């Protein structure tokens, strides 16, 4: 007997509106990115006047050439890449085991610890930033990669631990028990069962930490003198440069982010945890 499927009368209009909504959303998200790249190749005339052009008919690579020839972006680019990557690796190494342990604590204690992690993020960063930076400078960590990585870990660790506690909580203990019944040690279970299942969550947390460190400004400003990070270099261009110089440096700032997202995007799919437990 055929079952008649009743369609909601709103289905058709919604199906028609959905692509339009998608296009508008994409435009809202991508238009500022387009503007940054467009202005970076715009000659002076194109950004002059009450109604600057939305399209550049005679683009110039002058500002990109200046940035590349001058070479003062490569040092900051390298420093930002190294600091963000080292911060992310250190944060995962420190926070992942800790988060796993927290996720296996009794619920009341776990709740208190997670709240405790979040409390550390409730203070305005600037309120403690100067004191922390002073202590770091006193230890000779000013203008060093180590100092900046440690400073970034202050902000990153509670955040990544909080995300990973949520990830490990969703992994059933039965999987670990099954692994141990099969002869795996506790550490082996962690490395071969728990962490691989949590890879999606770890990738998301890593991306957030990497982006946090990549864009961090306060500690970079206080602890850096002779070699800026890229956000400081962007700020300098905003402070003293032209619109095109600012746009060019900002465009350079976004390129490595695209690269990192490309590497991590396969782990950013929703439902990465699905199928870990068979019924």
């Amino acid at each position, binding site marked *: 007997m055929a079952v008649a499927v009743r369609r909601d009368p709103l289905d058709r209009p919604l199906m028609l509106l959905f692509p339009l909504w998608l296009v508008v959303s994409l435009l809202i998200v991508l238009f500022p990115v387009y503007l940054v790249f467009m202005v970076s190749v715009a*000659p*002076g*005339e194109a*950004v*002059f*006047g*009450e109604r*600057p052009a939305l399209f550049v008919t005679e683009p110039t690579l002058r500002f990109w050439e*200046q940035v590349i020839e*001058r*070479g*003062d972006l*490569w*040092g900051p*680019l*390298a*420093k930002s*890449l*190294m600091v963000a*990557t080292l911060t992310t*690796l250190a944060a995962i190494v420190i926070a992942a085991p800790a988060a796993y342990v927290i996720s296996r604590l009794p619920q009341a204690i776990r709740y208190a610890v997670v709240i405790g992690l979040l409390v550390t993020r409730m203070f305005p960063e600037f309120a403690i930033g*100067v004191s922390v*930076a*002073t*202590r*770091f*400078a*006193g230890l*000779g960590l*000013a*203008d060093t990669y180590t100092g900046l990585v440690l400073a970034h870990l202050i902000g990153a660790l509670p955040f990544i631990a909080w995300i990973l506690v949520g990830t490990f909580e969703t992994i059933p203990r039965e999987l670990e028990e099954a692994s141990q019944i099969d002869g795996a040690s506790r550490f082996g279970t962690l490395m071969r069962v728990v962490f*691989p299942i949590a*890879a999606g969550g770890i*990738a998301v947390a890593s991306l957030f930490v990497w982006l946090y460190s990549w864009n961090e400004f306060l500690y970079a*400003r*206080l*602890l850096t*003198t*002779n*070699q*800026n990070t890229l956000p400081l270099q962007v*700020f*300098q261009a*905003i*402070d*003293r*440069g*032209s*619109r*095109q*110089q600012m746009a060019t440096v900002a465009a350079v700032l976004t390129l490595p982010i695209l690269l*990192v997202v490309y*590497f*991590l995007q*396969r*782990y950013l799919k929703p439902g990465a945890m699905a199928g870990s437990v068979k019924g």
Partner: protein
Amino acid sequence: MRKSAVALISFLALLASACGGGDGARRGGGGEGRLSGTSITFSISLSEEERAAIEDLLDQFRSDTGAEVKLTSVSSADLPPKLKVEVDAGRPTIHLFAQDNLALRSLVDQGLVEDLSDVQVPGQVVDSMVPEQFDGKTYFLPFRPNVRLAYANRDRFREAGATLPRTVEELRTTAEKLRSTARSGKVTLSLAEGDPAAVTISEWIVSFGGNPLILNDDGSVRAFEFLQGLWRDNLLARESLLGKFDTEVDNLQGETAWLAQNWPITSAQLAEQGLLNRFQVYEGWRGPAREAHVIGGDVLGIPKGVTGRQKEAAVALAEFLMSEQAQKLLVERNAWPSIREDAYGDVPREQKQTFDAIQAALENGWYRPNVAYWPDVSEQMNAAVRRVVTGGENARTVLDELHGRIEAAARQKGDEYPPAT
């Protein structure tokens, strides 16, 4: 995931090692000389166009003395917290800095700068260019004077049949013509909250014969009534409330303003875009009492805790930057007005108009007084902008109230009040 992670890390490491040597601030090492083996860092905020001349000067200093100098750029707003961190830690990484002379008080009050009373300022430096002392001590040395100039859009002025205003009355007439053509106010004054508004209001009060430290004298009241009229009659663009050194450049480029006042870095930025010839640059307008331009610019200082050979090198670099040779090069390459009376040079053709305007404005320069209660004066001037200029309240009533607050702050800080003229 492991392969991807290894690939990513390897790529980043390769990139970092490939780029690691690219410290654009360091050029060459120190040579032979009395300071060879000494390394210092000099901080100054520069536009790209101004940087090359400073780097050439540092190269010259290196070859003369043997000291290695790294050039870095910490903005005027960022310098105080950065110096506080380093001075409190007892490990300065900046050994000589050039700082905006409108932002010096906090450096002295926090004990962040060395006493430079022993350093000799060359006799050829114009007296009015020597920074004020604090409590009888010299903490800062002259380097680069600066004033705000007026920028007028030639084409729009022509269309409106307007001429360059040289007095505040002419400014009103010009603003009316521009408004008639554009149907909205096309003059911006830098009235953004904080220092920009304080600088603008100081100039207006002094040019009306008032004293910003008093704020309720006749000159101050007349200045505020005049500004209130400009605002009420829609002769000022509303963007004035966001007007400061960077937004004013945008206002001029985007034609939000057809006439605006701003610091000369505007000329460098417009020149970079090939737009400077669209603007007439001149010194601006005078008030009923006089013409007044707040003297800004950069002065040199040495952070507290710089000692030994590094202090010796920092002092030597400061002396070199005040020398005729250095000042002349800065005139010729950057069109910076000189602190010295003997440093003349050929200004680049494109910057000639700007240079002449700066020189003319400096003749009517006005130094902001270094009183401990200046932050309170600045706060009350900002309050007056909100309440009188844009809020439309009675100028005399409001300024009497704000004067009371300044007087209380001055007495609380132990300063003489009313100040000696």
